[in-house]
């Protein structure tokens, strides 16, 4: 192979498709990608070391800012870990409220991703439509928690706010409207010629590959592995009977379908949670500092997040380690990029739903 056929194309860190900075050095032979070499560190802040400066309660606000998109689930994983260390049993109502806000976050995250995916293959009107629906979810978050993106509802020992009956009625009405709009979008995305041309058979990962690479979340489920950490029944998920969404094709189209179906699943879960939520307190008072070490896991919109917390009884934790879902999924990117055509790179980068600020922290 003569060297003259090889060229290098820089992709990022500032790129129209990417909302976040990651740099890929693409080794290209004619139109075919031979190799992708990443450079990272553009969003690294060093949040894990913040435990030395901030105390146990202040860290909730820091872990929420690991990633603004799934902030609620980050705080949930952290609080569940601390509660396990301190042997605190939170009220049932707080568990349901946590599930409701977590599912709302999953919805806004998936809708955001669908829009960005549509944008990556130049389907601008679909981007606008999905983001129009997403604004309704943001309205629910705004009204129930007081902020649009980072809602800070989780505290150690429960939640900070309650959703009263009147508000529940309004949320359920909004969800009905969202579901109606989503059905229309789902039919478009499922059958549209443009969408199919750009996603079917692109970036295929078999179930064995997915397991071997240690993928998590929708990436794993789109390859036919029924793994969803919510099935272990943390918070109130044990009382909300549901099945993980699984597709078997393992291509970009399957990943899109998994995420679309999860949107309907989330609506369903929120409805069930409202119906089964008991009356009672929303938080218990927690005193003292945690001691010991614990691993806490939560299914985020991108997959399973793992928190390792080590505490020594002082007001600051001695170690916090976060393994985020994108850290696991980014391995898939370097499996599917080689051999693809250059025009498919933006779609493939987006198909793993990358969250760089999670990964680099």
């Amino acid at each position, binding site marked *: 192979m003569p060297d003259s056929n090889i060229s290098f194309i820089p992709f990022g860190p500032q790129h129209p498709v990417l909302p976040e900075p990651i740099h890929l050095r693409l080794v290209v032979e004619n139109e075919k990608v031979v190799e992708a070499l990443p450079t990272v560190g553009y969003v*690294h802040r060093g949040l894990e070391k913040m435990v030395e400066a901030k105390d146990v309660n202040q860290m909730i606000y820091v872990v929420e800012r690991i990633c603004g998109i799934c902030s609620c689930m980050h705080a949930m994983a952290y609080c569940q870990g601390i509660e396990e260390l301190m042997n605190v049993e939170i009220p049932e109502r707080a568990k349901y409220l946590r599930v409701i806000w977590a599912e709302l976050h999953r919805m806004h995250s998936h809708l955001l991703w669908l829009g960005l995916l549509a944008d990556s293959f130049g389907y601008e009107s679909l981007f606008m439509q999905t983001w129009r629906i997403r604004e309704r979810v943001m309205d629910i978050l705004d009204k129930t928690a007081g902020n649009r993106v980072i809602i800070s509802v989780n505290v150690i020992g429960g939640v900070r706010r309650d959703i009263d009956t009147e508000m529940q009625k309004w949320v359920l009405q909004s969800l009905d409207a969202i579901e109606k709009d989503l059905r229309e979008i789902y039919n478009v995305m499922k059958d549209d010629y443009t969408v199919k041309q750009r996603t079917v058979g692109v970036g295929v990962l078999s179930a064995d590959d997915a397991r071997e690479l240690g993928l998590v979340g929708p990436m794993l489920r789109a390859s036919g592995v029924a793994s969803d950490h919510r099935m272990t029944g943390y918070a109130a998920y044990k009382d909300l009977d549901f099945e993980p969404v699984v597709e078997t094709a393992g291509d970009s189209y399957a990943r899109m379908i998994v995420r679309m179906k999860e949107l309907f699943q989330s609506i369903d879960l929120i409805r069930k949670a409202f119906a089964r939520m008991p009356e009672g307190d929303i938080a218990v008072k927690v005193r003292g500092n945690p001691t010991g070490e614990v691993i806490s896991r939560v299914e985020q919109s991108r997959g399973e997040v793992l928190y390792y917390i080590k505490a020594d009884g002082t007001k600051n934790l001695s170690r916090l380690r976060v393994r985020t879902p994108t850290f696991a999924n980014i391995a898939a990117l370097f499996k599917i990029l080689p051999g693809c055509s250059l025009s498919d790179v933006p779609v493939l980068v987006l198909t793993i739903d990358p969250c760089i600020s999670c990964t680099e922290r």
Partner: protein
Amino acid sequence: MGLLDKARQRSPWLIHYDCGSCNGCDIELLSCLTPLYDVERFGIVNVGDPKQADILVVTGSVNQQNKSVLKNIYDQMPEPKVVVAVGVCACTGGIFRDCYNVVGGIDKVLPVDVYVPGCPARPEQIIDGIKLAIDKLAQKDVVKEEG
């Protein structure tokens, strides 16, 4: 005021760079482009090429790795140009200011014209900030002509 300057104020093109933010402000900025807030009614278009942009919108705090990237983007933009810092991290470093890899707000690297606080900044605030930036752009046009 020449025709070009007038056109620039009626339809400023903006470029967005995520400089180590948590995504919160980035998705709020993207929300501004979508049907509910629709900044295109001010003629604002989001572009990917710094050479075509008039307004640089930066979210997040500067770190050692992206300092040069940010400077590069700014230098590639043609005059006159304005910089908008969106979110409290871009303004001062915010919650991340004590982190070891964080240099601080983006005014450590670039001259900032408009600061938009908030964690994350709401779309209404961002639109307001960009409107202020357009006024600044007009001032810079005048300065350029006189100077």
